[in-house]
């Protein structure tokens, strides 16, 4: 118990944790609980630097319940119940897997685990149990039931931690156990195929759910599920380039979600509004926040020239290199659709007209909200410009888990022999185009007509009535549900499944409870009948 070891992989994840926690420390927080946050931090350190499975498990559980108590300050009973049942369940499957590994290898210490003599059936069982754990933590469908509610109902600041760090512990455990401990050669390929498809399906479904979502934090939660879905898909390819892509995407996603959650948290902080339908038109009030949001969503959508593109590029390259054409198509589809909800964030909050009459009275956003956002933006821009800068670090990790390092050709270039791009060139070209367009608009600005009031949209050829709330972002995504496939996706929900499970257990409980209220005499009858049966069986 409690054996630690400094590893490159641990360093990377712990580094991300430290950055996120330190930057979040600046953000104003109504429910600050030093004990619980430090417990959470310690548990994360415990997970990332553990050198045996028990230490990992201890960290995992402490993380689970300390975040439960953090969420409990704001979430309702049902969400809490969902959160804890899924997370404890996930932790117990992890414990089951650890016990299985112990039974097979006779040790808990990473370096002493050797799977060469383990029967393949047992490896399969271990793999499935571990995957369940990771699926729960990362919110892969159908185990995402707890994610969205917990993200949206927890304290604004803690949602960022949940999305940026805690969902990544699943990724960490995946890399640690499958790449480093069990190693590729003993894993079963069909299972990994299934995992890849589960990941990509999750990302597609979550993307559409996000598009249809009206609440900012729920949208980000779905987006988080989708992004982690990519990571799981690319990890299950189990190649060196795919591992690099996954690590890269992990880093990018951490900072994107840190930025976006705090960005939205800032808006919620000043406006007390959570829904797009009650927000809007805040562009001129909070321009800095808007610019940071744009940086975030460009990265989230994986468009050039920011950091998001670098990681997406690696993901596509890795998929292509492994000839996973169908998967690539699915990832591309989901990635392209992601643009729609990114757009919703911009439009719903900043563009259009304010739907809330009190908008003018909103206070200034406290400067402290910008610390994590600017940290995220700087890193995203840097990784867009010099995408190769962290490749040596990843190569260190790849080396430590026994993989070939990928090609490193200076800080500007990212990619493999198969395909690569120069971040400097890309950002230069985009910068140039951006400047040109900006100039164009600056010239146009003098000629544009300012609308006199919110009903003055005569350019649209339609004049709304006074009681109609005019908001471009409102209801966006509804029309999507007219498309057959998407309608099917949106109408299905795992809610019913889990509800049925819960009802089933409730009913069973009702039945067994009846037994425990037997009268003394009937109790006696039970005893004697039991005795008679056993006696008869024994004597016969």
């Amino acid at each position, binding site marked *: 118990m409690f054996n630690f070891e400094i590893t490159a992989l641990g360093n990377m994840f712990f580094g991300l944790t430290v950055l996120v926690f330190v930057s979040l420390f600046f953000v104003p927080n109504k429910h600050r609980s030093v004990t619980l946050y430090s417990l959470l931090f310690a548990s994360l350190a415990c997970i990332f630097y553990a050198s045996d499975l028990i230490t990992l498990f201890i960290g995992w559980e402490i993380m689970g319940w300390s975040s439960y108590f953090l969420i409990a300050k704001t979430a309702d009973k049902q969400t809490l119940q969902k959160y804890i049942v899924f997370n404890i369940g996930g932790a117990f499957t992890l414990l089951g897997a650890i016990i299985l590994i112990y039974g097979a290898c006779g040790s808990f210490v990473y370096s002493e685990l050797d799977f060469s003599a383990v029967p393949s059936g047992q490896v399969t069982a271990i793999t499935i149990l571990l995957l369940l754990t990771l699926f729960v933590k990362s919110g892969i469908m159908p185990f995402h039931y707890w994610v969205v509610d917990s993200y949206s109902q927890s304290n604004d600041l803690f949602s960022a931690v949940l999305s940026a760090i805690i969902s990544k512990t699943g990724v960490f455990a995946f890399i640690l156990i499958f790449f480093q401990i069990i190693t590729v050669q003993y894993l079963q390929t069909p299972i990994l195929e299934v995992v890849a498809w589960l990941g990509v399906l999750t990302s597609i479904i979550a993307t559409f759910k996000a598009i249809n979502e009206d609440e900012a934090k729920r949208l980000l939660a779905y987006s988080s599920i989708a992004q982690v879905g990519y990571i799981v898909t690319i990890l299950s390819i189990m190649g060196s380039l795919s591992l690099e892509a996954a690590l890269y995407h992990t880093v990018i996603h951490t900072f994107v979600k840190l930025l976006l959650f705090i960005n939205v948290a800032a808006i919620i902080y000043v406006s007390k509004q959570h829904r797009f339908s009650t927000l809007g038109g805040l562009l001129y009030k909070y321009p800095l926040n808007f610019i940071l949001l744009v940086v975030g969503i460009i990265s989230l959508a994986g468009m050039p020239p920011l950091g998001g593109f670098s990681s997406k590029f690696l993901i596509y390259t890795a998929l292509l290199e492994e000839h996973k054409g169908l998967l690539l198509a699915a990832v591309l589809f989901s990635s392209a659709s992601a643009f729609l909800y990114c757009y919703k964030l911009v439009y719903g909050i900043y563009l259009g007209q304010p739907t809330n009459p009190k908008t003018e009275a909103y206070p200034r956003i406290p400067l402290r909200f910008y610390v994590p956002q600017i940290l995220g933006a700087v890193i995203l821009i840097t990784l867009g410009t010099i995408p190769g800068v962290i490749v040596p670090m990843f190569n260190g990790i790849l080396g430590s888990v026994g993989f070939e390092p990928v090609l490193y050709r200076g800080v500007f270039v990212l990619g493999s022999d198969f395909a690569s791009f120069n971040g400097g060139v890309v950002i230069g070209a985009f910068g140039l185009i951006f400047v040109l367009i900006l100039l164009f608009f600056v010239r146009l600005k003098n000629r544009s007509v300012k609308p006199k009031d919110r009903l003055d949209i005569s350019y649209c050829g339609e004049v709304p009535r006074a009681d109609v709330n005019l908001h471009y972002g409102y209801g966006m995504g509804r029309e999507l549900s007219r498309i057959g496939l998407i309608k099917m996706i949106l109408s299905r929900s795992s809610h019913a499944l889990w509800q049925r499970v819960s009802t089933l257990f409730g009913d069973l409980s009702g039945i067994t409870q009846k037994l425990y209220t037997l009268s003394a005499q009937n109790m006696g*009858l039970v005893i*004697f*009948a039991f*005795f*008679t049966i056993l*006696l*008869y069986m024994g*004597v016969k």
Partner: protein
Amino acid sequence: MSLKKTVGLKTILTALLISFMSMLLLGVIMNAAYTHTSLGYDLLKINTISTQSANAVTSVVTYFRGLDTLGEVTILFLSIFGIGIGIERSDRMKTILGYDSTLLKIGTKVLFPLIVLFGLYIIAHGHLSPGGGFQGGVIIASGFLLMFLAYGDSYDLDHKVLSLFEALSGAGFILVGILAALAGGAFLGNMLPLGVLGKLFSSGILPIIYIFVGLKVAAEITVLVEYFIRTQDARDA
């Protein structure tokens, strides 16, 4: 009235189940071969040397398995205590069984000391003849029962004395045991001279223990009798 009404299906099924069970039990038990070497015979062999008591049952009860007896006295104490907790003492308490008869009253006056004396005799001769602490104790308690029956509410027990008897006799038992242990032997071991078989002052520690047991039982059963005979009438409540 039909049979079903008087007996009921459940009762019949229960009876069938239990009879079947008893049958099975009997079947198994009849197969058994009873042993002829046992703890009891081993103890009989060493009885004379180690206790000099004429009554082997007494030796077993008070000496060889004295701890069981301690436990039993404890259980008796515990139950009576539990009964005492449950029964509230109040002014409405009265003897629910009482015979107002002069003959009985006078007869009881004569008999009571004799009964107590007889009880004491039985206790004191526990190691010589059939009888002993329990039997004697119950006889003494029956004397008190007679008093309750004869005198009803006008007969008053001194509860202080009674509880003192209870406490001291129980404690005496344990203290004798502890003294024996302190004297170098085992707990409840024999620390006194054994004497000659058949004499009143013999068998070392045995009669002493039986006297304590007897007094304890007498006190407890008397309290029990009082609790039951002199309660608030259930029908009043």
